[in-house]
């Protein structure tokens, strides 16, 4: 199995006036070629920061940024900013940011916004860029007449398709999506998910799908990474993580989702995750864990491998 992306011990800390935010704290996972990995967690667990870290979208107050991010075997962290900008960002890896559909430039036509990166980064002529944009529109299921429309003339779902077209325009190998459907109606959400399934199948796109809704993630993900307080606490194929979760948090997470098709009353998990400024130096889930024991309060568990591809960060699985 070939890996499109390999992330090893990735760290991203920010400095704020309140202290240092350890947003991404030694995160490791991988994305096999042509597969989708769902990164699931509550707000504030660091999932968006992980995406930013991979794409090197760093704020001015970055305090620590290190680790290994390999794309097709090449460590991206070795590249300097210029090379990264020119060759990786948007070309090999691109991203649909959270709320992107609402950050389209309201005074520019959507066709132009999709074509622009081609004109600027690839030096294409206007005609070429526009024809590529038209191709993209077809790809995402938008009529080509819409190239001349302004964002406010399109519905939410259509704008989200525009944003996906923008992300795909330079044929990236890996597409990262951060809550791509959170502001959409359920029926439109289903349409967009179908579109993503299409793209994945036809173009063998590798994807990272970030969301707080594990049910939604299951709609596309081959692998699941469950994040909690800056750590990935469980990673593995969807079948294993969804049907046989090993980390107590994953178990509780799955138990708390209201299910339409099963008669399970949702349980809920009381309490809140620890903040990312000065987080506990022992297991971060200890105070809410139903299987907690002594060791959990003293050390941080390592990442233990419990199956061919299944990893858990929990002392219960120390092997």
């Amino acid at each position, binding site marked *: 199995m070939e890996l499109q992306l390999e992330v090893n011990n990735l760290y991203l800390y920010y400095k704020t006036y309140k202290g240092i935010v350890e947003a991404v704290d030694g995160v490791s996972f991988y994305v096999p070629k042509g597969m989708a990995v769902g990164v699931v967690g509550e707000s504030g667990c660091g999932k968006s920061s992980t995406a930013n870290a991979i794409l090197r979208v760093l704020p001015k107050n970055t305090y620590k940024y290190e680790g290994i991010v390999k794309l097709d075997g090449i460590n991206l962290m070795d590249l300097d900013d210029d090379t990264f900008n020119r060759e990786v960002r948007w070309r090999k890896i691109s991203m649909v940011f959270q709320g992107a559909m609402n950050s389209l430039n309201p005074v520019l036509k959507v066709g132009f916004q999709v074509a622009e990166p081609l004109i600027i980064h690839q030096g294409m002529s206007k005609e070429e860029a526009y024809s590529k944009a038209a191709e993209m529109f077809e790809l995402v299921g938008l009529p080509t007449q819409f190239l001349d429309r302004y964002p406010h003339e399109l519905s939410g779902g259509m704008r989200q398709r525009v944003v996906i077209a923008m992300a795909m325009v330079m044929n990236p190998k890996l597409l990262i999506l951060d809550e791509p459907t959170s502001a959409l109606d359920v029926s439109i959400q289903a349409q967009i998910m179908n579109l993503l*399934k299409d793209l994945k199948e036809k173009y063998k796109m590798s994807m990272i799908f970030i969301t*707080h*809704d594990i049910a939604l993630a299951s709609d596309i993900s081959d692998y699941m990474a469950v994040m909690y307080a800056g750590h990935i606490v469980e990673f593995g194929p969807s*079948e294993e993580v969804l049907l046989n979760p090993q980390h107590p948090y994953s178990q509780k997470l799955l138990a708390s989702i209201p*299910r339409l098709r099963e008669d399970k009353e*949702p349980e809920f998990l009381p309490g809140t995750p620890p903040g990312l400024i000065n987080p506990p130096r022992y297991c971060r889930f200890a105070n809410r864990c139903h299987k907690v024991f002594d060791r959990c309060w003293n050390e941080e568990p390592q990442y233990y491998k419990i199956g061919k591809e299944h990893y858990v960060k929990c002392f219960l699985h120390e092997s």
Partner: protein
Amino acid sequence: MGEAILELRNLKKYYTLRKGLFGKIIVKAVDGVSLTFKPGEIIAVVGESGSGKTTLGKTSLKLLEPTDGQIIFEGRDITNSKKDDLKWFRKKAQIIFQDPFQALNPYHSIYQILKEPLEVHGEKDEDIIMKKILSVLEEVRLVPPEEFLHKYPHMLSGGQRQRIVIARALLLDPIYLVADEPVSMIDASSRAEILTLFREIQKARKLSIMYITHDIATTKYFSDWIAVMYLGRIVEYGRTKEVLNNPLHPYTQALINAVPDPDPNNRFVKRPVVPGEPPSPINPPPGCRFHPRCPKRFEPCDTEEPKLIEVGNDHYVACHLY
């Protein structure tokens, strides 16, 4: 059983927009909705954007003036009552909004926020006010309650803020509550917690609730009845279990299909989707409003509007298939 607390009879809310210098557009946001709320019952109003569900909720509280139809609360017709005559009503009917970040004034402390409804309705005794505030904070499980009084909204998590919003609505001891998407801005994993808490409070106080949502999955645990709205009209209505297990209207079926459960097999299957976008109420299609998107449409659908008819067992649907 009890008398109906609130009856909405053929309620309509139209907006008039000016187009150009002389033209007018009428937006029929709510176009003839009838619902009856009995004490202690939750009716879920499910729909997408453009369905009119939020407008329905606000109109039922007279936060918007109805264009037609009647609102009968505790037997009194308040359809045309003026703002000044409704203070008694405001005590008994409250609303909870979906965005916990926006529903609380960022410049007020929790104490000030919770004090307000009591002050507005004339409570002056500081001790009584404090007692009520502490009691309602405990009810929403924000304990110890004293710790929260001096905090400001931005210091609390989304879930905590939403609980404050609920607490504020409960202070005046209402008997009817409109909950407009109360958990849609909260993480999926925390929704169950809030809804469970809310259900307990509702049962203890015998509140009637209009639960407005676009997420049909939550209705299973938080409603007794479901009314599915599309473009200002109810297209299906019935007991929750019945509607979820046996959805009759193609739109209801689509809504149910659109919601995934956490199942690894989902990724291999494309969901059956209803094509197109939820339409805007400015120009509703002729005949059955859903017909342009309906996978099961046939002859009469584009000319005649189907009426809401009972198909047995308190289950109503408005569709030519029946």
